[in-house]
């Protein structure tokens, strides 16, 4: 695939995913992973997970992971385009929703949407964690890092940066 084809494939997919990204950027990671790692091999699973880690360690929203993935696949311009492709469709929807909902009608309906979507969102985020964990589990060490992090981050209030720092240290020494 030539550069333009790669860019079009990635951006097109991100734009579609934008419209179904209930639960935000985390929920779409499995599909992006499948596209850039499994199907096309533009990144390895570890590189993908590292991009996720960098986006969590950097200031700003986690959605910037799309920029890192685009940048890795096709340079900084594709990185910026990837962020726009993922944010623009959902942003237009949010804009229209606010415009249409200025009177904020239909409380029971909105409540049903919220109640109905919540468990689906949880399943999507857990699936994301599962895909990333299996994708990075090249060795017993990385699998252990992922599982211990999952446990401690679920049960304590430690800042996520501690886990990323510890992961780097243990990974480098192992």
């Amino acid at each position, binding site marked *: 695939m030539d550069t333009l084809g790669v860019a079009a494939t990635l951006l097109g997919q991100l734009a579609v995913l934008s419209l179904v990204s209930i639960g935000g950027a985390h929920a779409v990671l499995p599909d992006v992973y499948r596209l850039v790692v499994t199907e096309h091999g533009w990144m390895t699973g570890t590189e993908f997970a590292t991009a996720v880690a960098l986006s969590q360690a950097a200031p*700003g929203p986690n959605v910037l992971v799309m920029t890192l993935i685009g940048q890795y696949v096709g340079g900084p311009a594709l990185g910026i385009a990837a962020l726009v492709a993922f944010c623009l469709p959902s942003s237009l929807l949010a804009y229209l929703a606010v415009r249409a909902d200025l009177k904020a009608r239909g409380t029971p309906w909105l409540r049903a949407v919220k109640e*109905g979507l919540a468990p689906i969102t949880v399943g999507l985020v857990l699936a994301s964690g*599962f895909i990333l964990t299996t994708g990075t589990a090249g060795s017993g060490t990385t699998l252990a890092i992922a599982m211990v992090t999952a446990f401690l981050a679920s049960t304590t209030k430690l800042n996520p940066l501690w886990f990323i720092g*510890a992961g780097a240290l243990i990974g480098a*020494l192992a």
Partner: protein
Amino acid sequence: MRHDGLGGGLLQPAPQSAPDAPLCLGMTPDNEHSAAAVASPHPSVRDIFLAFFRVGLYGFGGVMPHARSVLVDRHRWVSDREMTDILTLAQLLPGPNIVNVSIMIGVRFRGATGAAAGVLGLLGAPLVIILALGATYLEFADEPWLKGAFAGVGAAAAGLIVSVGVRLAHSLQPRPLVILFGAASFAAIALAAIPLPMVVLALAPLGIWFAWRAER
């Protein structure tokens, strides 16, 4: 997630007192104070840009708490209760929640221009930082002595996302249908490798329909 304060008054001025204002994401408890303090603010496009610029540059490990502290406590553009309403809608809509919040706040005060200012303020500086970080990563990604560190960092990120899911799961009521829909969306993506658009288009209407029936 809490139930109250969903529809009514999403974009209307806050009631003078909001005794039952739900606290979302464990934020500041002084909602009475905040709700009473909103006296029809008129932020300019520049104000909106700068407020979200600040929100974007905070946010190690989650931007949303900072959004609340900047918009509710610092600027008092919205009351605590309105902020919860905005957050609820932002979470229901597709897209990154905080981007949706910046659009809703921007539209509310300055229309489409305000929305653009909010998003650009929010994402501009972090975008530059992440591009620099990414360039540095690409520079050193092939260094053998760093490979292990990057693998460890990636594994930690995977575990962190699992923990986000676990925490979200704890916020749900463990009813049979809730468990069923959670398990179904997990299995469809993680085990059956079904594309997300198909999963959402199949499960979301069903989930909403069941929730709607349970309401009545």
